[in-house]
C-alpha cells in the first residue's frame, strides 16, 4: 500500500478529514470514505456524467479529480440537494415527469439540470439538450429529462431553489 495523505473534504456543508492514497479519485473517496453512494461511477473516463458533483457551485466530474485535490473546495453531491424531506424542485420534476427509469444517471442529471437552470433560468428544450449533453442516460431517450428540467425551471423561477 502506497503512502496515504490527509485531506479535509467539505461535502454538503460538513468537513471530514480522510486519509487516502494520492491516486484515489474524488469519486471513490466520496463513495467509500464518506459513504455517500449517490455519486455513481459509469465510465471512469469522463464521458458519462454519472459522477457529476458541484465544486464551488460548478459541475465537475468527480472521476477525473483526485481526492487530494479537493481540499478547500465546497462540494455538493446529490445527498446535499433538497433539505430533509423537502425535495428540490428539480428532484420533484424528475419524478413527476418521469425523467428517470433505472435512476443510475439521475443524481448527475439532477445536478447538471440545477447547473443549467442556475445559468439560464428559462432554458428552451434545445438549450437544455445542448447544455446537458455531457450526461448520458440509457433508459429514457432524454425527452422526459428535457421536460423535467423545463418544468423545474418554471417552478424555480417562482419558488426559488438554488443548490
Amino acid at each position, binding site marked *: *500500500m502506497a503512502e496515504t495523505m490527509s485531506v479535509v473534504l467539505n461535502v454538503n456543508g460538513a468537513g471530514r478529514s480522510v486519509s487516502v*492514497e494520492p*491516486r*484515489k479519485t474524488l469519486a471513490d473517496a466520496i*463513495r467509500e470514505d464518506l459513504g*455517500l*453512494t*449517490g*455519486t*455513481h*461511477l*459509469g*465510465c*471512469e*473516463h469522463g*464521458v*458519462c456524467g*454519472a459522477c457529476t458533483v458541484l465544486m464551488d457551485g460548478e459541475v465537475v466530474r468527480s472521476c477525473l479529480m483526485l481526492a487530494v485535490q479537493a481540499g478547500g473546495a465546497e462540494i455538493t*453531491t*446529490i*445527498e446535499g*440537494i*433538497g433539505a430533509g424531506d423537502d*425535495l428540490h424542485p428539480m*428532484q420533484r420534476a*424528475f*419524478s*413527476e415527469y*418521469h425523467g*428517470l*427509469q*433505472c*435512476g*443510475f*444517471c*439521475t*443524481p448527475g442529471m*439532477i445536478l447538471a439540470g440545477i447547473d443549467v437552470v442556475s445559468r439560464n433560468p428559462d432554458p428552451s*428544450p434545445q438549450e*437544455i*439538450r*445542448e447544455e*446537458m*449533453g*455531457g*450526461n*448520458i*442516460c*440509457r*433508459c*429514457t*431517450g*432524454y*425527452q*422526459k*429529462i*428535457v421536460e423535467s428540467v423545463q418544468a423545474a425551471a418554471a417552478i424555480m423561477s417562482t419558488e426559488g431553489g438554488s443548490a
Partner: protein
Amino acid sequence: MTTTQETRWIGVSAPRREDAPLIRGRGRYIADIEPAGTVHMAILRSPYAHARINGIDTAAAEALDGVYCVLTAADLEGIGDFPTIWRLPGQKESNTPALAPGKARYVGEPVAAVVADSRYMAEDALDLLDVDYEILDHVVDVEAALADGAPVINEDLGDNTIIEYTFPGINALGVAGDIDGAFEEADEIVSGRFKVGRYSGVALETRGLVAEWDDLRQTLTLHSGSQVASLLRTELAAALGIPETSVRILTPNIGGAFGNQWDRYPEDILVSLASMKLGRPVKWIEDRREALQATVHGREQLQEWQLAASSDGTVLGLKGRVLSDQGAHLHSVGIGPAWVTGAAAVNQYKIANYHCDVVGVATNKTPNSTFRGFGGPEAMFGIERMMDKTARRLGIDPAELRRRNMIQADEFPYFSPGGAVYDSGNYPAALAKALEAVEYDKVREEQQSLREQGVYRGIGIASYIHVSGFGPSAILGILDYYTGGYEGSTVKIDPHGRATLYTGMIPMGQGTETTLAQVAADQLEIDIANVRVVWGDTDQTPYTGFGSAGSRSNVAAVAVIKAIEEIKAKAVRIGAGLLEADPDDVAYADGRISVKGAEEMRSLTLADVAQQAYWAHKLPEGEQPTLEATYVYDPANFTTACGTHVAVVDVDIDTGKIDWVKYVVVDDAGTIINPLLVEGQIQGALSNGLGGAMLEEFVYDEETGQLLSSTLMDYLVPSFTDLPDFEIHHLVTPSPHTEGGFKGMGEAGCFPAAPALANAVADALSHLGVEVDQTPVTPSRLWSLIDQAGG
C-alpha cells in the same frame, strides 16, 4: 385499515414509487453494497483475439501485500460452466467457460482473477500476472470464419459452424409453401444484403456482484443484477456443485439491464468461488472497459434476402439466409436471437411462401446474446428495407405497398409461416394513423420543393410486430428452450388489510413495482399505498420461469390478477360466515365484503375479514387460516405488439450528417397499465434502436482482432442532441391471449427504429439511387455511399 376509494389504477399515469430514493441519491446499486470484511476482485482479460495460454506465473501477484488469492483455470477443477438454455436441434455445444481453459478466444475473455484488499490493489496485482501467450490466427468476420482454411475457434466443434437451422415456411395447414413456385411466378425479384451492426445495451451501471459465503449456515448469498434470479440460482448451484437450497440471490437497484443481464456470466462463478474459498465477502464491479469487452454484445448479422413480387405489389414469397456472428462461445441463449429473426421476418405481411436458413457462426469476438429486441429488430431491418426496395423497384409508394400486403384486422389469429401465432392487431389502422400524424402527403410535397432548394429530406416508414410474453411453457419445450414461460405471484393480505405482493419480476428501471402495485390495487379495490411489492430475494419471491424482461410485465400482471381472484373468493367465504349469509349472496366490491343488496347494513372491510382470517376463531369448515394465495400463470400463447413508425430526416450530402425533422410512433400493445411509463419505455427503446442505427457499434480490427470500441469515446451512445422528440400515438387492441389484454411492450420501440431511419435516409437520396443497408449509418459510411453514387 383499508381505505375504499373510486380510483381505478389500470390506465392511470401513477407516479413511480421507485423514484423517491433514486432522486435523492439513496438508491442501492450493487457497487453500494459492501458487507464488513469485503475484499475486491479484479479480472485479467485476454489482450489477444486468439491465443494459446501456455502458462500463468502468479507468484509475484500472490506475493503482493494485500492480495488474498489468484484464480486461474487450474483452480476450476470440478467447477462447471453455465449451459446454453436454448438448445436447438443440431446446435453444437459451445458453453462459455468461467476462465479461458488453455486458450483465449476473444479480446476480454477472463484469463485469471485476483482478490485483494481494494480494487486499486487488485489491479496492481493484475499487473504482476505473467501469462505466456502463444498468439494464434484469428477471424472476426462471419464470411471469413466460414471460408476454407479459417482458424477454428473451438476445435471440439470441428469448424466454425455452430448450427444451420431452416425455417421451411409452414402454413396454418401444416404444410410448407411453394417457395420455388413463388419465385417462378414473380414479375420482379428484389434482392438485398444487409449488415446489422454489433452493439448492445451498454447500461450506465456496469455489471457487478457481491458474493457472501456464510460458513455457519453453509449458504451462499449473491448480490446480483440478474434479470432472472431464479435461473441464476439454479445454474450457479449446479456449476458450483452445492445444493440450490444453499444459494440465495438478492437483487438491489439495477442501473439498466436491457437484456444483457438476462444471461449468466463467468464472473458469477468466480466471485462465488472466491468467497467460498476465502470465507469472506468478495465484490467485483465491472469497469467500463470490461463492460464493453465482456458483457454480451448483440444484433450482429449478415442477412441476404430475396423477395418475389407481382407487378401489383403483392409479395409472393420471401427467402433468406441469416448469418449470425455468435462470437467465441454460445452464451445463455445460444443462437436464440437469430432464430427469432427467422421467425419474425415475415412481419405484418401475408407472405404465403417463406424460407429462411439461419446459420450460427463462431468468431473471435465477444459472445453475442440477449439484448433488448432479441432478434426482432434485426428481422425488421431486413424485411422493412426489402419492402422499401420493392416499392422503389415497382414504382409504388412504400406506404401503399405495405398496405396491400398487410394482414387484415379480421384475419387473427394468424398463423405466420415463421411459426408464430399472431394474436391480434390492426396493422392497416396503425399505418393509417401514423401517416395521418406525420401528414404524409404534405411531407411528400415539401420533399419535392425542398429538393429543388438543395435540402434532401427523406421519409422512412417501418412497420413491426413484436412477439412477446414468451409462453406457454409447452411451446418453449417444443422450441428446445430449457426454461418455463410462466410467472408466479404470491399475494398476502395482512391482518390490517394491507397487501404484500411477491413477484419474481426484477425491476430494472421500467417501473415494474409501480405497475404491479397498480394491478393489485385495482383487483383488490384498495388504495395503491396499501400495496407493497416484494422483489429481488429468491428466499421470498416465487420461482420465475423466464425472469424479468422488458416485455414480461404482461405475464406477471396476470399472475397477480389470478392470485387476487383466489384471495377475494376466500375473503367472500370467510366474510359470508361472519355475516351469517350464504356465500352466493356475498360479493367483494369496493374493497369490502358485503351481502348483495344490503351493502350499507351487512358489510365488512377487507381488514375486518383479514383480521378474522388470522385469528381463525370463526372460519368456515375446512378453510385454512390467514389470507394469502399463490398463482403461477403460464400464458395461453405469445402476444404480438405491433405498430408503425415514420421517421423524417434531412441529409447533408456534403458531410453525411443526418438531422431529425420528425419522428412519429403509433404502437399497439393492447391494454395499457400506466400510460406515462409506457411512453417512457417507447422513448427509451427508441433511443436503443436509433443508437444502433446511427452511432453505436463494436468495431473489430480485421488485422489484429482487437475491439476498437473499448471506451465510450469510441463506442458512441446517443446523447441529448442526437435524438428527436418522439410523437407517440396509441391504438389499443387487447390481446385475447392474456387476461386483461396486456401485451409486452418494453422492447417494441427498438424494433422499427433502424429501418425507419435507413428508409428515410435512402428516400432522401433516392435521386442518387443510394441504398442504406448497413447499420450504424455513420456519416463516414453515408458519405462514401453518396460519393460512390456520384453525389
